[in-house]
């Protein structure tokens, strides 16, 4: 495959997908796994068993920060039915870098670093016995001072989580808990602010939220003394699980075959491992299959929520709405390990705007909380909350229309992005125009209601991708992809394969291959699946089509390049046009054994042309001044999808992102007590939006093709959560008549803001 076939192209040349009329792409057929999922037949992480299976339970630290003095497992081991106990001593030694971080998070060594940190694990003949045994493991702790707030963790005198964790990016003089530093920008912000007619600077905070997938992490591990193993688990990326588990167990990657179960939501939270190496270690120790399933409170306490933030943003604007300078400082708390997306937060913060003078600074800060994990466009929603709130305030004070101001300053094709490169073709302006034209934007508001608008941006990713497409004798196709289907991606893949092959959608069976059956596939993250696996599917199908054409050429005795593929048939072309009847796919495949063997199309590459994506959201909110409760009364998502392969599932991504954003903006937060323990580790207290909290969520799909994909696809999964925090904050601030600076905007916070305003 020539590299330039999938590399982004520059210029305005007509794209391949543009103006093409698709036969199947762009329709919304029933998903291939629909019946499995509505009948209870689909098998998720916790839905499998194995003969002789044991059940495991994990012993977790009740302290936010404590030295582990002694672990006494004797009472647990003595319990009838207990087969093994593992501690850190049962894992590989000598790891460095991120693998060490992951191991340390999976099983504490000398220090428990957060409430819920794993310190030991038990395998027993039943789940009840395992849980009882876990309580019998006696751990002696020496409690250490802790810190869970980002600003407190950076302050002089804060307890040090781990000396020497900072990398070279961190300037001298900062607290050792600051472990990564990012600074970028251009122009001269001070000169830019001097040019402005109005400059506003404000401080914003967001609490950590959890991805809140309804399926807790679950796995079934089998490993023998020979170091060979099988692992079944719910994950967004099983090759990554294979790589990490092999390292943590000290075995070869190929010794471990990982199969991805159906996955009950991930949103970024299932891109790493938490329990899989533990189950494998217990299985290795007992030579029996071990099933390990997290409880909901374990999910909250010990998997990766988002980072919490403390941010300062300053924007200068002229009277006509021109932005003259933007500056931001973003402090992110990412738990007891490096990795909070301070850099991405800083890079996303001003991406929608074409501004000459910019400065963005990010701090990645450690604290005594669980290691953060990705959550849909990590960092971008928080950055947008701060930036878009300040822009909204500037519009209010200068009496300008928020969409006009955004249009005036919007990034376009050729604009140098705030984070460096030049934008290729992008659709921000188109989303703003569509939002402006939407009836929602001009609909009258009722008393007590406010309207908010925000833009949002996400990079999107490509990543290593491998796809294989095998044709059956009857001309149907079996597509193997390596990216777990989280939200209907089998349907999109089948559509693209069917489109290329010219066969019915129903004739494509899509399987998520295990790690032993396909080349490496990067995790399903970065909104990459429809883009990268889709691109690979198209190319694999084209590879198969070339082979099909070759068989027809041989049969007809004409050159291969004199055969083209149309409507599922090989057709002679050029000087041979009309010489032979079209040869349907099923006729070619029926005899493929005798004409050269099985026909399989492949594609393996690391596509790099994932087009960035923008969205504009409009929200109407109503605030009850008596109770402080906010109701979202109307919501419209406008987003650029490049090309919507399965429009109904694209809408679903838009709606899901908006709903999660509503929860983040209004309700959801990690609440830590003075003792450093998480106080709301159940769904009753960590309240995600329920059906009666939400309105219908209107969607507009904008299609500005991505030059880096044959059909123009841009990933859509993440951008949808970037604007809501700000859009809702702007609506709530308008409704309440007072600017809200802190998320979630829970009733007590709104009452407090109203109170302050009355008092002041």
């Amino acid at each position, binding site marked *: 495959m020539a590299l330039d076939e999938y590399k982004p192209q520059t210029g305005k040349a007509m794209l391949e997908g543009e103006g093409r009329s698709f036969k199947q792409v762009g329709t919304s057929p*029933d998903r291939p796994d629909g019946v499995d*999922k509505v009948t209870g037949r689909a098998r*998720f992480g916790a839905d499998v068993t194995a003969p002789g299976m044991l059940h495991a339970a994990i012993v977790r630290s009740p302290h936010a920060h404590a030295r582990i003095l002694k672990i006494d497992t004797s009472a647990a081991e003595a319990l009838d039915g207990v087969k093994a106990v593992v501690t850190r001593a049962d894992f590989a030694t000598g790891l460095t870098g991120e693998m060490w971080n992951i191991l340390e998070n999976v099983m504490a060594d000398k220090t428990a670093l957060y409430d819920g940190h794993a310190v030991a694990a038990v395998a027993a003949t039943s789940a*009840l016995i395992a849980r009882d045994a876990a309580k019998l493991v006696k751990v002696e702790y020496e409690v250490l001072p802790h810190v869970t707030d980002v600003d407190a963790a950076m302050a002089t005198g804060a307890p040090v989580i781990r000396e020497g964790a900072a990398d070279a990016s961190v300037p001298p003089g900062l607290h050792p808990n600051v472990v990564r530093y990012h600074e970028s920008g251009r122009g001269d912000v001070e000169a830019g602010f001097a040019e402005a007619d109005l400059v506003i600077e404000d401080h914003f905070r967001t609490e950590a939220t959890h991805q809140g997938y309804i*399926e807790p992490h679950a796995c079934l591990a089998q490993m023998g003394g020979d170091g060979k193993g099988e692992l079944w688990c719910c994950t967004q990326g099983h090759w990554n699980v294979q790589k990490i588990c092999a390292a943590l167990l000290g075995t070869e990657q190929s010794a471990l075959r990982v199969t991805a179960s159906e996955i009950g939501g991930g949103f970024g939270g299932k891109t790493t491992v938490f329990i899989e190496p533990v189950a494998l270690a217990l299985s290795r120790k007992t030579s029996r299959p071990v099933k390990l399933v997290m409880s909901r409170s374990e999910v909250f306490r010990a998997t990766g929520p988002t980072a919490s933030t403390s941010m300062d943003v300053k924007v200068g604007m002229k009277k006509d709405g021109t932005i003259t300078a933007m500056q931001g400082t973003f402090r992110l708390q990412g738990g007891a390990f490096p990795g909070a997306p301070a850099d991405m937060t800083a890079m996303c913060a001003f991406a929608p705007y074409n501004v000459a003078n910019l400065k963005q600074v990010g701090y990645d800060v450690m604290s005594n909380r669980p290691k953060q994990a990705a959550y849909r466009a990590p960092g971008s929603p928080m950055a947008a909350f701060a930036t878009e709130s300040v822009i909204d305030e500037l519009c209010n004070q200068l009496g300008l229309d928020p969409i006009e101001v955004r249009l005036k300053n919007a990034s376009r094709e050729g604009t140098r992005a705030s984070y460096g490169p030049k934008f290729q073709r992008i659709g921000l302006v188109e989303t703003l125009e569509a939002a402006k034209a939407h009836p929602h934007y001009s609909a009258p508001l009722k008393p007590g209601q406010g309207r908010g608008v925000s833009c949002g941006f996400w990079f999107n990713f490509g990543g290593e991708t491998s796809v294989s497409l095998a044709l059956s004798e009857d001309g149907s196709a079996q597509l193997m992809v390596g990216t777990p289907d989280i939200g209907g991606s089998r349907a999109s893949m089948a559509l693209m394969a069917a489109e290329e092959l010219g066969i019915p959608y129903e004739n494509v069976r899509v399987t998520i291959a295990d790690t032993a059956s396909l080349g490496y596939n990067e995790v399903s993250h970065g909104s990459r699946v429809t883009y990268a696996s889709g691109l690979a599917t198209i190319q694999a199908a084209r590879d198969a089509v070339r082979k099909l054409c070759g068989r027809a050429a041989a049969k007809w005795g004409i050159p291969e390049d004199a055969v083209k593929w149309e409507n599922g048939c090989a057709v002679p072309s050029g000087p041979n046009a009309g010489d032979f009847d079209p040869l349907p796919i099923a006729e070619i495949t029926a005899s493929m054994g005798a004409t050269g063997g099985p026909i399989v199309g492949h594609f393996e590459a690391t596509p790099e042309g994932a087009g960035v994506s923008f969205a504009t959201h409009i929200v109407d909110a109503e605030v009850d001044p008596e109770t402080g409760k906010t109701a979202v009364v109307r919501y419209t998502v406008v987003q650029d999808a490049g090309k919507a392969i399965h429009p109904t599932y694209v809408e679903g991504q838009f709606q899901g992102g908006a709903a999660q954003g509503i929860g983040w903006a209004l309700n959801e937060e990690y609440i830590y007590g003075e003792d450093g323990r998480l106080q709301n580790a159940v769904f009753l207290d960590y309240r995600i939006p329920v059906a009666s909290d939400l309105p219908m969520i209107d969607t507009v799909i904008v299609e500005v093709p991505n030059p880096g994909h044959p059909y123009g696809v841009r990933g859509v999964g993440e951008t949808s959560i970037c604007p809501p925090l700000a859009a809702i904050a702007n609506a709530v601030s308008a409704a309440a008549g007072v600017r809200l600076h802190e998320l979630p905007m829970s009733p007590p916070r709104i009452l407090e803001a109203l109170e302050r305003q009355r008092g002041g």
Partner: protein
Amino acid sequence: MSKIHVTTTVNGDAVEFLCDARETLLDVLRDRLNLTGAKEGCGTGDCGACSVTLDGRLVCSCLVLGAEAEGREIATVEGMANGEELHPLQQKFIEYAALQCGICTPGILVATKALLERNPDPTETEVRYWLAGNLCRCTGYDKIIRAVMDTAADMREAS
């Protein structure tokens, strides 16, 4: 510890099992009867992924003890379709893309079936409040609500 012997009916089939006094109905369905359609999202009655009916009443099976199933009639998502023929709700959920990951789907289907049996003509608000105990993190509920309303309309027309 000695186990409790329970005789019950699940999706119309007579069933017997032994369970620990602490095991929930959800544990029994999933681990002893191999009916893994009902899911455990929380184990505390907050997510509805484990929804089943007990003598026709909608319950969170994680809040019912296995031993309490004695002599009762239990219905789970596995019993919703009639052989090959999907229940209209199941059909409509697929058609409307009312599921993304699908982990909440069994519980939501069982819950909405129970709703439509009681109230064949619910308003949007009634559907939303009825489903307030069934969490879905993927969809934002929009397509779920539409699928339920449309199924209700179809079923009214058919009856």
